[in-house]
């Protein structure tokens, strides 16, 4: 009797598992999937693009992923989770082509099949991973936060540094040299504040505040040779809006740009970048290392005229042989004239483009809903909005992949507050693909449960070597290397 029951149950289970899509009602529309992966371009080495159907109540789902080449993937059940190895094999077989995803759902015993949608598999690979800070989108106080490294070909995320390591520690900007983590700078704030400078495995903790500079070093950008790193120094405060669609205003009362030389512990200053009558911030070196881009605005009375402060995109020559700056500042994009303001300039590593964020005013576009990504073609000086990737909400911080064919950016488009990471491809002709959100297993519940924003995303070409235990002990100590002004 017992045996009979087991056989009966097993056959029932087998029948349930193997039930395929039979006689489905064909629906002419795409399924409403989360995240929106319909028609996106993905790199061959991306993690499985699992998705959910949060708007549909269904008993079972059946997803078939096919390419022109390779073995199809067939997922059945409640969740849409593609097996990692099969996924990578399918993408590899269809590199430079596309895959088609057919979604069917079973409701009350009847199948419904949606219009199949494509994903385009780019011929350009993406870097090994992306590094970001996760922090609650708060005001002045911070709770748990950390800098994390995500392997883009899987769902593995590992913490590099979390603020549980040192009580009261705030983790700030991190930077790598053109995705190379051999050159690493991370700024820590709090009573144990320091700037971590790690070059080719050797690291030291710096005290970058001097009597001649406004603050400790803030926004970093490596020189392509790794011999220098540019920083801004900022006297920053926050303001808080009163009306419903606004939250925070981050204001620089003063700011300058400088360059640090790690091997001599020297800060290199230029009077042109230290002017009282203007605010300079967000430095970035050109790929050849001979130009330093930055944002500059005429200083105005704050808070009375904070909405009139608008940053232009400027540049100054830099000689990497002797660390000397040029004699004049050129304005590349006069945003002031457009009644706009530029932040986060990021030149592509192939020297073709410079991407930046454009908002109505100020420099901290992260809290500006109107902030969008724009691109300057450095070859012909043409400027355009990246309509392919922008949304009605904030698009802000961004960085390029090593091959300059991908860029990652943070966006508040999902819910208006919690920033998420998106990736988009730019091909040889400058065509930009529809962006896709950083893949997760069970993405809807993952992002819905997540109480952190993603900040300061940057690609890395391999896992970062950073030993947290000794770093934590050293941060707790008073060991700091002072920097000097040359």
């Amino acid at each position: 009797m017992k045996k009979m029951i087991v056989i009966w149950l097993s056959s029932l289970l087998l029948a349930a598992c193997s039930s395929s899509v039979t006689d489905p009602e064909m629906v002419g529309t795409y399924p409403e999937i989360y995240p929106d992966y319909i028609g996106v371009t993905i790199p061959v080495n991306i993690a499985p693009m699992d998705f959910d159907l949060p708007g549909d109540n269904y008993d079972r789902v059946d997803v078939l992923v096919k390419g022109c080449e390779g073995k199809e993937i067939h997922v059945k059940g409640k969740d849409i989770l593609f097996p990692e190895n099969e996924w990578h094999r399918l993408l590899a077989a269809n590199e430079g082509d596309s895959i088609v995803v057919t979604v069917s759902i079973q409701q009350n015993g009847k199948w419904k099949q949606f219009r199949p949608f494509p994903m385009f598999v780019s011929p350009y690979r993406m870097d090994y991973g992306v590094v970001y800070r996760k922090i609650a989108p708060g005001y002045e106080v911070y709770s748990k936060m950390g800098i994390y490294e995500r392997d883009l070909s899987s769902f593995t995320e590992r913490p590099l540094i979390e603020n549980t390591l040192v009580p009261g520690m705030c983790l700030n900007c991190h930077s790598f040299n053109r995705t190379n983590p051999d050159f690493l700078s991370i700024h820590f704030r709090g009573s144990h504040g320091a700037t971590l400078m790690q070059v080719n495995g050797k690291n030291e903790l710096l005290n970058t505040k001097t009597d001649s500079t406004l603050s400790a070093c803030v926004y970093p950008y490596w020189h392509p040779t790794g011999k220098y790193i540019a920083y801004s120094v900022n006297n920053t405060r926050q303001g808080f809006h009163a009306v419903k669609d606004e939250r925070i205003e981050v204001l620089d009362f003063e700011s300058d740009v400088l360059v640090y030389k790690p091997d001599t512990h020297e800060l290199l200053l230029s009077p042109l970048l230290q002017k009282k009558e203007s605010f300079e911030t967000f430095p970035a070196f050109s790929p050849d290392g001979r130009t330093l881009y930055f944002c500059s605005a005429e200083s105005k009375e704050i808070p009375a005229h904070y909405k009139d402060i608008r940053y232009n995109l400027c540049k100054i020559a830099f000689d990497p042989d002797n660390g000397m700056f040029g004699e004049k500042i050129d304005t590349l994009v006069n945003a002031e004239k457009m009644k706009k303001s530029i932040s986060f300039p990021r030149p592509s590593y192939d020297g073709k483009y410079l991407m930046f964020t454009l908002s109505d005013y100020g420099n901290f576009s992260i809290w500006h809903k109107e902030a969008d990504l724009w691109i300057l073609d450095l070859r012909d000086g043409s400027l355009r909005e990246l309509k392919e990737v922008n949304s009605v909400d904030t698009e802000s911080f961004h960085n390029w992949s090593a091959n300059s064919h991908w860029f990652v950016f943070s966006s508040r488009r999902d819910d208006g507050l919690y920033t998420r990471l998106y990736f988009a491809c730019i091909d040889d002709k400058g065509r930009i693909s529809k962006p896709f959100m950083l893949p997760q297993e069970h993405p809807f519940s993952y992002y819905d449960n997540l109480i952190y924003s993603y900040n300061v995303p940057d690609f890395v070409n391999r896992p970062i070597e950073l030993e947290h235990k000794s770093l934590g002990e050293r941060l707790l100590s008073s060991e700091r290397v002072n920097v000097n002004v040359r």
Partner: protein
Amino acid sequence: MNLSVEKIGKTGLTLLLAITAFVFWNNYYPAHLLYHEQYQLFLFDGAYLWERLSVPEGFADYIAEFLTQFYYHPWMGALILSFLLTAIQLLCWALVKKFGTLYIYYPLSFIPVFVLWHYLADENAMLSLAVAILIVLIAGNLYFLIKNTRLRLIYALGCIPVLYWLAGTIVYVFIGWVVLSILIEAYRTRTYFSPLFCSLGLIAWGILIPLVTAYFLQYPLLRLLRGLEYYRFPEVFPNIIYAIGLLLVLIPVVSSLFPLWNKRIGVIIEVVLVACWGYNYVKSGCDFSKEESMKYDWMVREKQWNEIIRMAESKTPTSPYSVTCLNLALGMTGQMGDRMFEFYQNGTEGLLAKYQRDFTSPLPTSEAFYYLGMINTAQRFTFEAMEAIPNFRKSTRCFKRLAETNLINGQYQVAAKYLHALSKTLFYKDWAEETLGYLGNEKKINAHPEWGWLRKARYTEDFLFSDREMDMMLGLLYQHNYQNKLAFEYLLAYVMQQRDIDKFMRYYPLGAHSDYDHIPKHYQELLVYVWTQTHNSWKGMPWSIYPDVMRDIMDFAKIFSTQSNAREYLKQRYGQTYWNYLLLN
């Protein structure tokens, strides 16, 4: 002492402990339970469980948080604490017995419980320590149930990492029992080498585990060696925790050395001594002024405005925290202008306190901002308070309020995020699910008595918040919607608290837009004060002032100007007037 008397006595003492603990937490310390409950967000969710279990002590912490959610109803919290303390006492005695202690020393098993109770009376002491003690006591008792020496050792070796992970550094208590029992046995059998080797090995094993953990988890080694979640502040590790650990280890061993003496008198003396000491020690750990403040805060959460005023009438609150709650209650019941100075006032800090970077003080102020209609500021204070929770937990109370502020502001997707989380809780689920039905439904929100009104009250013209210009912001709020009488009362109260009579006189006429049937008493007091400064008679006074107010100011002025030593008399007679605040404080 025969067996039944012994049993009755022991049961009676334990029962007394259980009842006393319940009565204490339920009747005398309930606001502390509510305080704990609001600073966590226990979710029935696999990811939440996994997050807790991925760190040492996480299991005890998870169980503690699970239990703490029931503090939502203080009687449930009192029951849980009573059960925990009683279980710890019983398990402690069971372990003490294993060391051969005589039954007349039963009262000694209450000592660690009283110390723990004292500790738990601290509002930042986490329940995880009690749960961890319970776990380690179970493990310790199981150890002594094993008779085979080798099996015991294997059990202990296996138990140490498991206990460290489940219950944290309380594992050292377990190691203490095991080592002491081995050494006692060694002393008895006069064989030292092997027991000493085993003892040292166990101690080294116990130290090695946190050392290894430090390579994988991002916590300072000291915290991994001391404990992660026993106290709300990660940098703080109260010495009392060491004391509890030491008592748990030493009481079984030391009490086993005590002799058998006069049973009845001995036990009575012991009971009296332990009870007296326990009472005083627990009492010394209690802070009833904080309990009072927490109660005010809780009543604000529950919108028990009249209860707040009744409580203040019996004993006027003095801390800015409580005064903020009282003033809000007065404002919400329309009594602010009439009664505010009947109670102790500590300036604008008791009205709309400046933001402090902590997790408690911004909350009553955020409540005031919320009811005023300063939704963004209420949201900021709430968010900041939550982010300032030292052990990085989230807060049910804050999530609830953030869902409301986002809903009022039309940020439905953000509101949904908080509501989805609250849907995974036990006591906020129904509210969250009901509120989800409001998202995107403008008509329904606008028809809601609270949210609909706050939508009308909030600012529509943008500016940057400035706590140095609070009166300006309150004025703008009132001018935006003249039905917002609370904003007007806060505006006048704010400048009155600042003793800024010029501003009061400038803002007072704005009250014409509100439906006052009389001039509130404190406004009258200020108006007649101003009048008497510039006029010799009441003739031509443009306000309807109560005759007794006019009479009182004359008497007050007469005494104030002629009697230099009448300060105390005036305070006594006019202590509930604005003149007292203005001139005598």
